Every structure is written in C-alpha cells, then in structure tokens.
C-alpha cells in the first residue's frame, strides 16, 4: 500500500528559476529564501519519497482562457516544461506516475469531482520550481500534477479545495502501489501583482495561515474567495494549493521546518515541510 509521508509547500515566484540558474543561492537578496529549504531537503533525503502530487496553478502555459478547467489532473508518463515568455530556463521533463494518476482520477470522479484529465500537460514554474527547490540535486520523484484554477473567477472555494485534497489523499491511501508519497502545495503567500493595490502583503495573516496548516488545517476554509483575496491579494489566493495539499495529507503532522521571508519579488515567500505524525 502507498504511504503518505507528509506535505511540503512553497511559494513559486518565477524569479526563483532565474536565481537557481545563475547560482544566486548565497546572494544576500536570495539567501534568506534559499536557506529556508535546508532542513526540508535533509528530511527528503532521509525519507526518499517516490512520488509527489503537486497542487499548483497554471499561469498561462498549458491552459488559456479558451478552456479553463477548475480542477485538472495530469495522467501522462511525463510532463514537459516550456518557454513561458519571460526568459526563465526551460527544464527537462518530469516523470509521471500514470497508474497513480488514474487511481486518483477514478476516485475523484467517484467522489463527484468533475475534473479534466490530461494525457498531455505542459507544466509551468508553479509545478517545476517546488521540485527544483526540494530536490536541488535532481533525482526528483515521480509526479502527478493537480492544477487548480486561480486565474479566472469564479474560483473554487477554499472549502472545495480542501475536499479535493482530502479525496486525493483517500485515493493515494487506497492505491496498491508500494510507494512513499508526499503532497506539495505551490504558490502564495500574500501578494498582489495587479492594480493599484499591487505590492499588498499581509504578514499576520500569512503567519497565522502557516501555523493553521500544522494544527488547524481547515482554518482558512472558513473564508470566501472574496475574503481571501482581500486578506492575501489577488495572487495570494494561490494558498488554495497549500490547503488542498495539506488536506491530502490528513491527520496530525509535525513541523519539520518553516520559513517566511518578505519580499521575494513582490511576494511574501513561505515554505513549510510537514511530516505525518
């Protein structure tokens, strides 16, 4: 049987890709961000998860407004990255886990989630950067991308994203594959790129949210999307991916490590590594 070993979460600012490519981890601007990953990387080296299920949002690489699924699940043998238009390096393909993908898809539809399934799926920085950050030496895990629409309103509610995550966790726990699985939530924390409110950051909310991921994982699901945009910014809403990832690793957890740093680019950057207790 598969075993869910915990949940990881990180912000996914595109500039991180440039910083990795240029080897800027020790640069004074970047060091407080990258240093936060050390204990999480040690934990991953020790635990060696075989598969990562990555909850993320596409920013206009695979999905455009012509077809915008609320939830999409990858079911491909590999996932390619590609040119996103702003010059961050394109990464080599990531291996999929189609057996697990279909186990998840079957279970989600059984649970009445009307998802889109993708046998071809380009993955953008929101998927690739967490893998690069948590597995810096390469040799990353097999992957299953789960894409949540945070681009075009109406967005799925936080409560619905928690339910999605929970159902993914059920599917993994019931999967016959003898693998260690880690959940990854990608995005956030508070930031807003657009409009006169650009630059908005909400440190007290972010810190409360990070703590809630440990001991009260549905705390943020009390808020509507509108309230979450108000509290976290139009892009801070990406915390939906964290909520889903945490719900997919149910039960008590203990914190391996956390890090919070303002700012990277326009974003309050958060990192969290949780081990299933």
């Amino acid at each position: 049987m598969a075993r869910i070993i915990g949940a990881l979460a990180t912000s996914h600012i595109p500039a991180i890709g440039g910083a990795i490519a240029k080897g800027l981890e020790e640069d004074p601007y970047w060091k407080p961000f990258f240093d936060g990953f050390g204990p999480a990387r040690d934990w991953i080296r020790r635990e060696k998860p075989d598969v990562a299920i990555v909850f993320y949002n596409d920013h206009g690489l695979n999905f455009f407004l012509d077809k915008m699924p609320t939830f999409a699940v990858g079911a491909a043998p590999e996932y390619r990255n590609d040119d996103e238009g702003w010059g961050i390096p394109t990464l080599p393909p990531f291996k999929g886990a189609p057996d697990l993908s279909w186990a998840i898809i079957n279970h989600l539809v059984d649970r009445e989630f009307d998802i889109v399934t993708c046998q071809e799926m380009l993955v953008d920085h929101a998927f690739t950067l967490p893998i690069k950050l948590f597995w810096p030496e390469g040799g990353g895990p097999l992957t299953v991308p789960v894409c949540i629409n945070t681009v075009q309103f109406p967005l799925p509610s936080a409560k619905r994203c928690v339910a999605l995550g929970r159902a993914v966790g059920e599917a993994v726990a019931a999967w016959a594959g003898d693998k260690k699985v880690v959940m990854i939530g990608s995005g956030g924390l508070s930031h807003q790129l657009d409009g006169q409110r650009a630059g908005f950051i909400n440190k007290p909310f972010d810190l409360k949210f990070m703590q809630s991921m440990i001991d009260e994982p549905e705390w943020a699901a009390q808020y509507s999307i509108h309230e979450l945009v108000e509290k976290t910014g139009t892009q801070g809403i990406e915390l939906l991916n964290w909520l889903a990832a945490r719900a997919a690793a149910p039960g008590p957890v203990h914190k391996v490590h956390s890090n919070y740093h303002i700012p990277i680019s326009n974003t309050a950057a958060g990192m969290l590594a949780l081990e299933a207790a």
Partner: protein
Amino acid sequence: MSASREIFGTTPFDGAMAQRGYALNKMCFSFNNAANRAAFKADEEAYMRAYGLNDEQAKAIRGRDVLGLLAAGGNVYYLAKFAGILGLDVQDLGAAQTGMSKEAFKARLVAQNEQPETM
C-alpha cells in the same frame, strides 16, 4: 459572491473581464513562443490587428499602460508575458500601477516586514 464589497485597487478577473480582454490576453498568451515575440517586435501594429485587439487595448499596448491594459480586460498572468518582451519585471509593473518609482516600490515591499506578527 458575497455581494462583493469592493477591494481597493483590485478588479477580480471574472467572466465579464475575461470576455472583454479575450483578444488582448490571447495575444499575450502567444508570447510564450519566441517567434511570436519576434513578430510582435518587428511590427506591433500588424500583430495587434492579427489578434483583433480593440482600440482601447491597442492604445494601452502602445502606451505600455499597465492600468489601461487591466481596464481593457488584461489578466496580469498574460500581461506579464508582454512585460517580459519589454524587459520589465513585476516590480516595474507594481511601480507603474502605484505611481511610485521602482526603488520606492521595492522599499515599500521591504517595509512590510514591520507589520505585526499576529492577527
């Protein structure tokens, strides 16, 4: 929606905006491709015509007017690809939208560290 009280300086990218901005966003989405970026740079007007931008959108593209592009239905994730062509990052966009210099905008971000730690 909870009869959405407005959030200052924020326009949720909803169905109305997605319809209004479709041509503009579609053009920006095309900038994922290097050949398309080159074609735009070679002849911006022809490229905008090919994607059917309306006058408001074309004017905002010509003027590099970020708030104008948002008002014309642009979504920031796609507009970021246009900004990439111009060699601008999201802090340039933030500065342009808030009427600050880039240095002042960056300083304001750093100053957010002074917020309290608890709600």
